[in-house]
């Protein structure tokens, strides 16, 4: 079982879904603080849900306030960096580049991609953990 988890984790790592930073966070967990990673991940998902919602609304309204969008993305990139969600972080960087040049089309496209990567990371996180199982994650 341990071996399976280790293999899955390695595969996620190889595919670029987890980076060094996630490993660093796991190392901060110990018997006295056994839920640290889960707690941080929960904060991340709450935070990213809020940001995704804000950005969705802003884009749906058709208002391309690039500076505000960039500000949301800065936050999103920050927390994605801290949690080790590197593909999400990459999309954030791309989105900010499009904001910088005022490319609305690019922003929209990138945002779709970002949401995909984020959802994948969320699902995979369920697989990568010694946990009750992915279904528990999906219910969240």
């Amino acid at each position, binding site marked *: 079982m341990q071996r399976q988890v280790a293999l899955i984790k390695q595969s996620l790592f190889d595919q670029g879904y987890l980076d060094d930073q996630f490993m660093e966070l796991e190392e*901060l967990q110990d018997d006295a603080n056994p839920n640290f990673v889960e707690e941080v991940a929960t*904060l991340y998902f709450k935070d990213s849900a809020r940001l995704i919602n804000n950005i969705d609304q802003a884009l749906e309204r058709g208002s391309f306030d690039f500076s505000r969008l960039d500000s949301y993305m800065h936050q999103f990139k920050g927390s994605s960096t801290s949690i080790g969600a590197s593909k999400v972080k990459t999309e954030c960087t791309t989105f900010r580049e499009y904001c910088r040049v005022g490319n609305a089309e690019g922003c929209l496209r990138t945002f779709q991609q970002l949401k995909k990567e984020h959802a994948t990371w969320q699902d995979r996180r369920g697989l990568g953990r010694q946990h009750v199982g992915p279904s528990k994650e999906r219910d969240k």
Partner: protein
Amino acid sequence: MAVGDLSSSSSSSPELHVLAVDDSFVDRKVIERLLRISACKVTTVESGTRALQYLGLDGDKGSCDLKDLKVNLIVTDYSMPGLTGYELLKKIKESSAFREIPVVIMSSENIQPRIEQCMTEGAEDFLLKPVKLADVKRLKELIMRSGEAEEGRIKNPSPNTIIQDDIDSSSPSSSSSSSSSYHDDDDTPSSKRMKSSVHD
């Protein structure tokens, strides 16, 4: 018993109390954990304004007994809504009560002019996020060492020190100033010397 007293006071190694300032929930949680693992007491606040309130620098004086809250180190994010980390740094350095407290800036962006601006304003160090345990441990050692050096000089005045004190009794202690902790030969990548390998 004098020796015993001295050794007990210096070896009890009081915990550092760190004030961590960051508007991100995730980052606050992580920095708090990093500091706790490094045996520090931690207070986290979500903005520069709250940090000033905590320190009693917001003009609302005398609400707390500052001695109890003695902060040994302030670690702050750079980009925050309202008061930025840089502005917080400036306010702290302008305050006679708190200017000696080392302030470390954290940022996810490796922007040279920004780093220089902070270091010029008196920041102790500039860390690139994500902050690692190694960064925090190194920082702690730095602060403890300058704190001990300070205490050592006060409690164990050497003949040289006495002479120096006689000569310029009004000069601030030099050992605990930031210049001693720059450690020019220290190549820790994520500090102000910048990461040579960016994780992107």
